[in-house]
């Protein structure tokens, strides 16, 4: 019984087992995005529903990212067929209202859905306090590296992606990120001068 060879063989198998053990600490479905820290991809999107207060836009108009320089932009991708989108809806609407006096703009981008279904969904859930926009052929979704809904991007006033959130977002996360972006970009104290 050649013990020396046995030990060597055993040691050779250790890295393989370690690799598998490592595999358990990882989630293969979680893909990190390369966007945070980089300039946010520009978009031009048509407004579907108006929203309220300082976030409001006229349906039929377009929103361009370039127009939103100097504001914290929250871009949320959603769809009426997406169940988790329902759970985050209230958090987003409330956060939008909460930050309406700060230089922020919330936008809800409808993903692979019919506009009528989107409008109906908004109505069912009691309204969206920020504009919903349509994304033709998902060009913007692809530009943002979307691989499911809901996903939320928070863009700082300098136009860089500060944060990407996978899955339904909560009020806590929204407040934490938006507050830190506002502070670090020095626009925390400026107040938006009423609805546009």
């Amino acid at each position, binding site marked *: *019984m*050649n*013990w020396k*060879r*046995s030990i*060597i*063989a*055993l040691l*050779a*198998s250790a890295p*393989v*087992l370690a*690799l*598998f*053990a*490592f*595999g*358990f600490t*990882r989630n*293969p*479905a979680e*893909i*990190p995005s390369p966007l945070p820290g980089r300039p946010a991809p520009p978009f031009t999107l048509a407004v579907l529903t108006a929203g309220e207060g300082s976030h409001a836009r006229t349906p039929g108009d377009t929103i361009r990212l370039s127009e939103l320089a100097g504001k914290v932009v929250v871009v949320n991708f959603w769809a009426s*067929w997406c169940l988790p989108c329902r759970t985050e809806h209230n958090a987003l609407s409330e956060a939008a209202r909460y930050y309406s006096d700060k230089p922020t703009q919330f936008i809800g981008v409808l993903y692979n859905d019919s506009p009528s279904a989107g409008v109906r969904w908004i109505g069912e859930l009691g309204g969206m306090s920020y504009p919903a926009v349509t994304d033709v052929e998902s060009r913007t979704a692809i530009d943002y590296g979307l691989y499911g809904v809901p996903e939320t991007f928070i863009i700082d006033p300098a136009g860089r992606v500060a944060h990407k959130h996978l899955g339904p977002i909560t009020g806590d996360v929204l407040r934490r990120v938006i507050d830190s972006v506002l502070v670090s970009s020095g626009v925390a104290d400026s107040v938006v001068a009423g609805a546009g």
Partner: protein
Amino acid sequence: MTGTIAHSALLVSVGVLALGVILTPVAVRSGRREWLQLVYGAAYTNFLLVTIATVAMVYALVTHDFSVSYVAAVGSRSTPLLFTIISLWGALEGSILFWAWVLAMYAAAVVWLHSRKPGNLIPYATMTILAVAAFFAILLVGPADPFRPVFPVPADGPGPNTLLQNHILMAVHPPLLYLGYVGMTVPFAFAIGAIVSNEATSNEWTLLSRRWMLASWGFLTAAIIAGMWWSYEVLGWGGYWAWDPVENASFLPWLTATAYLHSVMVQERRNMLRLWTLNLCVATFVLTILGTFLTRSGILSSVHAFTTGSIGYYFLGLIAVVLAATLVLVAGHSDRIRTPGKLGGAASRETVFLLNNLFLTAVMLTVLIGTLYPLIAEAIRGVKVSVGEPFFNRMTIPAMVALIFLMGVGPSLPWGSTTWADARKRLAPPLAGALIMAVIAIAVGTRSIYALLAFTFVGYAAMGNLREYWVGMRARRRAHGESWPTALTRLVRGNRRRYGGYVAHIGILFVAVGVTASSAFRTEREATLLPGETLTVSGKTVRLKGVWGREEPQRSVIGATLDVLGKDGAVTGTLEPRMNFYRVSDQPVPTPDVKSSIKGDLYVNLMAFEANGANATIKVIVEPLVPWIWFGGLVIVIGSIIGMFHSGRRAVPVRKAPASAPSDPPETAPEDEIVEALT
């Protein structure tokens, strides 16, 4: 009630198996061999107990007993009966139960067939199988318990995964897969038994092991082909192999098993490559456990992945134990197992088999590392990468094309050795086949170099293998004056292993042609049609007749009816691709429709439709020669069946074969002469 009976049976089986495992070394060491009867009895009892549990599960599924946790998870009153029965293996816990049952069956079969043999090989082999069975039994009463009571009892369940309810092949592929996969435990058990009982250098365990490996290999081949067929008919993209991690997991042991089936012949004739052959046998089993670990642990994303839980940790534990035990045993005894090697000459079948093993092992390692690489890259670089079809195709196709060529060389060369001049004479005739195929391939438009090589080598190997039959039959006719059919039957019966093997080769060649043609010449088009409009792809035309819908208990079905038009515009067939909207899922499952012929398939998938049925978007794919893949699978299985039922006489070590002119018959192995003397 059903659940309690089944769960109790499984609990008892844990005890029975533990008893069998512990009792074996005790019985052998102490010399009380009558206790071995208890060990064998444990194998039979375990089979009985697991059968009770399995029957109970099927009963619970069919009677919609939602108080049983597994039924509550996959059962539904609206699922058709057939799919209810086969949901036994459709989700995690049920599949583990099914694995345990197949393993119990194999254990009982091994004991039934071999327990009368003297020596310690069978006891220790049985012990090994029982130990593996014990692992699964522990899973079944613990983390993977399918019989947990559910309270309050729900009125109905969600039904099986919607992808698994669409096609009859779901009744075929998993059982074949388990018969193959689980069956590879048996040769492994013989290998371990041989080492532990100090019989690793004898040929007895090799003979036994080989036949069980051939049977498992046959099942696994059939399972892989059936899985490809299922994927082709259900998933809607017109492909049959995506290098998905779990597909790869079934391919890896197939590769090492194929290598084993060849190297074991060198071991028998030359008494060399012992350690290597043993390693292949052991590696095959380890790869099956690895495969099942990858499916059930969730560490790799895959279409096949079962829902995860703590069960992955248990499988990691099993891999660790299996790897450790086998590495210690094999490495520790390697000195004794190894035998000195001596070849008669370079121009021999043995050399070809060495090359065959090289390429098979290279493909296996490439696929293994490619499959695990996303994990490796994440561990080392911290980045998520994908390793998909383009990579695997690029890196494995050259080796696989080389293997096709070798399939033609091996049968033409003799065992032992021969001169290079003689080898050249033997290897020349199949070149005609190669040339014919090359010409045909170029004539139909093959441009890719690998496709051209593949076709050429298929021609070479086909002619090489068929020629072996012809030469053998011709020799018999000359020697005995037999008619062609008699010559064929007697030839095959005289050496089933060899001629069964050539049949399997021919089956592989059919598969190779089907795969090469459908990859190189596939054409597709997608279009939105109004009723009455046509779409033409590569000379095949379909016309949309209409869009329809119907309700079924578990799903809504939307379909499009298409006429297939012949050259003159007459209707030559109908195709009805469908989309199935299951109530429990928001993702529709497409069911493409396929019109098959010897020349290939016309494949139609329904991509989208207007809600009022005004139009339909269809994708039409023309896939040449795809049915040759399924047919080839059948031929391979026939070959393995022929090769399995041989007389069991082991091949006699070869003397140096005399150099022979092409018109002489190839060397008649000594056993042929024995047969001729006896008939």
